[in-house]
C-alpha cells in the first residue's frame, strides 16, 4: 500500500471521504517525509509544521461533525517562496529578503485556504525566478530527488523536488520563462503555465510583469486540472486577470482528442536536442497518431530570436520591478547614514551575482540611447513571434515540443557560463512573451533514468485542450 505522502490529491480526498485516512495523518506523513529528505534535497526554505498539523486536526474535526468542507480539504501543499502569506517569511530565494515578514496574503493562497488546503511550507527557488537550476538561491542548492547528483531545474526547483518526493501533494510554482515547466520536466511531474491573466498574481513577488504566471505542479493531470479550477479567475487586485468563465477542467480533460490536429515544431526538434529527448518526443507523436490525431509540421522561424527577445524584455522589466528592493522598508538594511549609500550598499549586499547581472543588463537595455536598439526592437520581435504562433493555431489544435532540449544537468555543470544556462530555456521562454498556456508532462526517461518532459502548448485560455491531450497520453500508457 502507498504511504499517504505518495498519494495524489484525488486519491487522498477519496480516502478521507471514505474515512480511511485523516488529514492529520496525511499532513504528518508529508512532514515526516520532509524531515527525512530535506538534509539531502533542500527543497524547502520554510516549514510550517505546527500550524499545518493544527489546521489538519481542525479539518478532521469539521469532517467528523459533517460540516461542509472545501474542495481541497485537508490536502497539504507548498508554495514557491515568492508568495506572500500573512505573518510568515517570504524570501524569493534571495538574501535581499532575508528576515522579511509578509504583511498580507497572496490571492492564490487565499483561494487555496478557502478550499481548506493546508500550506506546509515554502519552497526554494532561484532568486526572484532568475535561473533554471535553483543553483542561484541564497539558501543553498536544491537537489533532484530522482538523482541527487543532478539539478531539479528552476526556478521553481524546490516545488518540483518537493512534489516529486512527496513533500506535500502539490505545489504552486511561478513561471516567467519556464520556471514551472523546467523543474516539472527535470523532476518527472506535471507543471502548467496557464494563460497570462488566468490566475491572479496578487501577492507574488514580481520578476517580469508582462510574462509572470501562477500555476500548479502536481503528480498527475487530474490534480493539475483540479487545482486550476480553484486558483483561476478574476481578481480586482490584479488588473490583468481575465473575466472569462473558468471551465470545469476536470471534466473537459476527459474530452476525446480523436480527429484533432497536433503541430510539431520543426525548429524545436533540431540541433541541440538530446537524442533520447528527440526519440521520446517522436514516440509521443506516434502515440497521438495512434489515438486518431493528425500530425502536422509547423514552422516558427522567429523562435531563433525568441531567447534574445525574451531576455531583453524580461530583464528590463526585472530591473524596474526590483527597484523596490531598496532595503528601506523591508529586507536587508545597510547602516550608512546617507540615503543613497544606504540603498546602494543594501542592494550590493542583498543581491547575488545573477540578480546583479540581470538588473544591470536590464538597466542598460532601458537606458537613454539604447532603449530603441534593445527594448523596443525586442518588443517588435515579440509581436512577430505572437503572429507566427497564432497563425500556427489556425492550422492545429495544439503544439507539441520537448519541454527542455536536455534532461537535468549535473549540479555545477553550467554555473560558470550564464549564457549557456539561458540557452537551455529556448523552448519554454518562447511561450511567455506570447501569453499562451503550456504544460510539461512526463514522457519517458533517458538512458540514465532521468525524466524527459513533453511540452503541450495551447491557444489562449484553452487549458482544457492541453489537459485533454495530457490525459489521453497518460490513459494510453496503462
Amino acid at each position, binding site marked *: 500500500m502507498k504511504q499517504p505522502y505518495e498519494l495524489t490529491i484525488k486519491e487522498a480526498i477519496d480516502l478521507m471521504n471514505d474515512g480511511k485516512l485523516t488529514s492529520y495523518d496525511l499532513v504528518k506523513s508529508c512532514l515526516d517525509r520532509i524531515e527525512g529528505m530535506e538534509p539531502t534535497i533542500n527543497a524547502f526554505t520554510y516549514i510550517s509544521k505546527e500550524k499545518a498539523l493544527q489546521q489538519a486536526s481542525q479539518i478532521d474535526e469539521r469532517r467528523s461533525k459533517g460540516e461542509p468542507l472545501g474542495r481541497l480539504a485537508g490536502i497539504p501543499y507548498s508554495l514557491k517562496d515568492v508568495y506572500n502569506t500573512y505573518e510568515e517569511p517570504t524570501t524569493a530565494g534571495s538574501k535581499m529578503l532575508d*528576515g*522579511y*515578514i509578509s*504583511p*498580507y496574503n497572496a490571492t492564490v493562497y487565499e483561494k487555496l485556504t478557502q478550499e481548506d488546503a493546508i500550506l506546509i511550507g515554502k519552497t526554494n527557488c532561484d532568486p526572484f525566478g532568475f535561473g533554471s537550476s535553483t543553483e542561484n538561491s541564497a539558501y543553498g542548492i536544491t537537489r533532484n530527488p530522482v538523482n541527487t547528483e543532478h539539478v531539479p531545474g528552476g526556478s521553481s526547483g524546490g516545488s518540483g523536488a518537493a512534489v516529486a518526493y512527496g513533500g506535500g501533494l502539490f505545489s504552486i510554482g511561478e513561471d516567467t520563462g519556464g520556471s514551472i515547466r523546467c523543474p516539472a520536466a527535470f523532476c518527472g511531474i506535471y507543471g502548467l503555465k496557464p494563460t*497570462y*491573466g488566468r490566475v491572479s498574481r496578487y501577492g507574488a513577488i514580481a520578476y517580469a510583469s508582462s510574462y509572470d504566471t501562477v500555476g500548479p505542479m502536481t503528480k498527475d493531470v487530474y490534480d493539475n486540472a483540479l487545482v486550476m479550477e480553484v486558483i483561476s479567475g478574476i481578481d*480586482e487586485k490584479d*488588473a490583468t486577470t*481575465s473575466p472569462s468563465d473558468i471551465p470545469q477542467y476536470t471534466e473537459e480533460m476527459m474530452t476525446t482528442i480523436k480527429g484533432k490536429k497536433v503541430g510539431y515544431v520543426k525548429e524545436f526538434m533540431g540541433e541541440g536536442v538530446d537524442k533520447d529527448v528527440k526519440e521520446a518526443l517522436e514516440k509521443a507523436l506516434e502515440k497521438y497518431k495512434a489515438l486518431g490525431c493528425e500530425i502536422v509540421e509547423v514552422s516558427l522561424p522567429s523562435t*531563433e*530570436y525568441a*531567447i*534574445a*527577445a525574451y*531576455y531583453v524584455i524580461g530583464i528590463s522589466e526585472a530591473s524596474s520591478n526590483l*527597484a523596490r528592493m531598496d532595503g*528601506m*522598508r*523591508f529586507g536587508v*538594511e545597510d547602516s550608512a*547614514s546617507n*540615503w*543613497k549609500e*544606504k*540603498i*546602494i*550598499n543594501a*542592494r*550590493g*549586499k542583498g*543581491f547575488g*551575482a545573477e540578480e*546583479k*547581472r540581470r*538588473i*544591470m*543588463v*536590464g*538597466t*542598460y*537595455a532601458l*537606458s537613454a540611447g539604447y532603449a530603441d536598439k*534593445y527594448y523596443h*526592437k*525586442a*518588443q*517588435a*520581435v*515579440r*509581436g*512577430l513571434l*505572437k503572429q507566427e504562433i497564432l497563425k500556427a493555431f489556425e492550422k492545429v489544435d495544439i503544439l507539441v515540443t520537448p519541454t527542455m532540449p536536455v534532461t537535468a544537468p549535473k549540479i555545477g555543470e553550467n554555473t560558470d557560463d*550564464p*549564457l549557456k544556462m*539561458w540557452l537551455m530555456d529556448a523552448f519554454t521562454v518562447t511561450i511567455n*512573451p*506570447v*501569453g499562451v498556456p503550456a504544460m510539461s508532462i512526463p514522457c519517458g526517461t533517458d538512458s540514465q533514468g532521468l525524466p524527459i518532459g513533453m511540452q503541450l502548448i495551447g491557444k*489562449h485560455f484553452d487549458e482544457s485542450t492541453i489537459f485533454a491531450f495530457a490525459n489521453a497520453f497518460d490513459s494510453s500508457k496503462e
Partner: protein
Amino acid sequence: MKKNITVDDVKKIASLAHINVNDEEAQKYAQQIAAILSYIEKLDEVDTTGIEFKSQTDLKNVFREDIAKNSLKQEDVLKNRKERSKGGSLVISSVL
C-alpha cells in the same frame, strides 16, 4: 559582433541601477555582460517593419469605481522596520 564592455561601463551601469559592485565583480561582469549583449545583437537581423506588439491577450484597459476601502494596516506594513517606525510613519535619513 563582439561587444566591448569595460570595467568603467559596468561601474556606470551599476551606479544607474543603484548597486554596489567592487572591482573584482566589475571585471567578471564586464566579460559576462559583453557576451550577453553580443548574443542579443542577433535581434538586429530580424526585419520587424510594421510589426508592433500590443498585448498578450485581448484584455483591454480595466477600470473600476473609485471607492474608498480599507487597505493594509499601517502596523503591518511597518512591522519589517519596527525600530524605525514612529507614529505610523517610517523614519529615514534626510534626503535633501
